């Protein structure tokens, strides 16, 4: 028994002694540093430095203290908007999941030609500017837009409906824009599940539903969570689409931050708003991962 094991699998000692094979862990320290240096520099100068400066600014204007944050708490407006931002991001994430899962499944499991077609349908919008897609929604939803014209012609309504500049329109348009970010991780997870597992289950008498429910779904969950988390975080900071498709009523945190940076030029307060949004987002992400890691099956969620 022990003999076969040693022959079949190389010992850990043997793996460690092998020079520079595929695993990054065996690269020398210098090489690793050189490889990550461009990314670290880019992050440092392009992201950490300016963002850090903005965030720190919120604690130092006019002098060190929490004045900007107190101001933020004084009016109910800012917390209302923060809450609304989370609500909308949540709605968008759920909608993306409900629409995205079947599409991801189709991309992974349909016959090649159909799968390719579905993939194209998912990717082409991803390569199209967010601006263009948001304007397309305006064309569809406006008072004299395509949807209203159709409903009027069908005689289902007598007065044009108010479709655009509503919260519903924002959720719909944002879902459309963010859908690929949900689909792609799920697609990767579903594709990684070997077909043999399903076949084996069927062989043992499981029905199609049962195979999906007990094999495919649990194994694709890491993809589902990765996709949802990505969509949720992107939705929290969305600026373009809500500004175009939503009216002044659907104000999100990003809109408020934009107002403070470019209109009132109150960068300290903009920094305070950004700090709150960032802290809320990080708290959420950490809490999400903690909950998931309690269940060992989802430990692969990044």
């Amino acid at each position, binding site marked *: 028994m022990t003999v076969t094991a040693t022959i079949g699998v190389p010992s850990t000692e043997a793996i460690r002694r092998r020079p520079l094979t595929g695993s990054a862990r065996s690269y020398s320290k210098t090489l690793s540093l050189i490889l990550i240096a461009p990314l670290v520099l880019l992050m440092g100068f392009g992201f950490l430095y300016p963002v850090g400066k903005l965030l720190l600014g919120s604690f130092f204007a006019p002098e060190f203290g929490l004045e900007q944050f107190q101001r933020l708490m004084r009016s*109910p407006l800012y917390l*209302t*908007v923060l809450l609304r931002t989370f609500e909308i991001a949540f709605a968008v994430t759920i909608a993306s999941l409900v629409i995205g899962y079947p599409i991801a499944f189709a991309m992974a499991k349909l016959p090649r030609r159909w799968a390719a077609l579905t993939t194209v349908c998912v990717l082409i919008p991803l390569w199209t500017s967010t601006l263009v897609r948001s304007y397309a929604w305006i064309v569809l939803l*406006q008072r*004299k837009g395509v949807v209203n014209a159709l409903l009027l012609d069908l005689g289902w309504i007598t007065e044009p409906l108010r479709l655009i500049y509503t919260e519903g329109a924002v959720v719909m348009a944002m879902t459309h824009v963010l859908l690929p970010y949900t689909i792609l991780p799920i697609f990767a997870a579903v594709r990684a599940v070997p077909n043999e597992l399903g076949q084996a289950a069927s062989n043992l008498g499981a029905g199609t539903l049962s195979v999906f429910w007990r094999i495919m779904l649990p194994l694709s969950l890491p993809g589902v969570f990765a996709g949802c988390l990505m969509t949720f975080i992107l939705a929290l900071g969305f600026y373009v689409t809500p*500004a*175009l498709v939503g*009216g002044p009523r659907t104000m999100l945190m990003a809109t408020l931050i934009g107002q403070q940076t470019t209109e009132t*030029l109150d960068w300290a307060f903009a920094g305070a708003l950004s700090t709150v949004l960032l802290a809320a987002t990080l708290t959420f992400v950490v809490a999400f991962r903690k909950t998931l890691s309690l269940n060992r099956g989802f430990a692969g969620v990044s």
Partner: protein
Amino acid sequence: MRRFLKNCTNAGLITAAVFAVSGSGSVSAQEKLVIATTGGTLEQEMRTHFFDPFTKETGIQVITVSGTGAENVARIKAMAQTGNVEWDLYQAGEIQAASELHKSMNEDMTEFCRAYQGDTDLLPGACASSGVLSAYGTTLLAYNTRSFPAPGLKTWGDFFNVEKFPGPRSMPNFNDPWRVMAAALLADGVKPDALFPLDVDRALGKLDTIRPHISLWWKTGDQSTQGFRNGEYVAGEIWQTRASALKKEGQPLAWSQDQAFLVGDRWALIKKAPHRANAIKFLEYFLAHPQAQARVCEALTCTPARYSAAKAMNAEAQAAAPTSPDVFEKLIRPDAAWINANNQMLLERWNEWNQR
């Protein structure tokens, strides 16, 4: 959004400018002047009637960078903070120009204006410490003449009267809420001379009555015109320049100047401007050319800084823009000092009202 687009064009323009400057030796040796503009037609007209002729006369090359007004100011603030000023001149809205922030970033023009003290051809206050007047424009009540044939709408009271004048409407929402509140107060019967300080509660109360009839709160000038074209709304509080552009296109549009809000744009000279002497030369050139001012204002429907320029405009433009003294008197001038002092409060109340 528009800001985002502008950023892209800015990047392009700056690169273009950099290439233009560094591209050939002869050009980089040339004297130059960097002006930040709000792009679009304004920049085109300025280029044709001022920048290019100025270069021809003085040999000073004019390089422009463009962005939205607010965005330009944000960049200038950043330049001032880092002590690395790259631009010389820009046009600031008159209200902004009266703010403390503006004073901290731009030169006091009192010294420059001394030479123009006795110049009676200049509009009163055209040359002031906050900057040199480029032109006046208005925000007014425009309406679709097919929905509202003559006599049409005259006052903000008519605009808020949805029983007598039914139909969807549009009002601005570009983070500058005083215009909307002022229109509401006038509609509610406040006398123009008692308008400022704005009674925000009363204004928002009046706005509650019209909110269900507003089909678009416009953010950009383009947006404000598009809705008139496709029938999204039939009356709106929009910029005069945009209203006359629509009419030129053949849209059935009319407007009322009776309670229009008058807001000017001023040339501001940034502190520590790298080409300060050239900027001064340009401002002198600008004030010395009423004919060119007239051509620019014909194209944009604005009121130029000189009376002689207003007289030199063609009849059509004179009729459209507020140029005659009696119309000019009736226009409503915002209290810039009050607006600046209460900017944050106004925006906060406005945001809150929107969330209600």
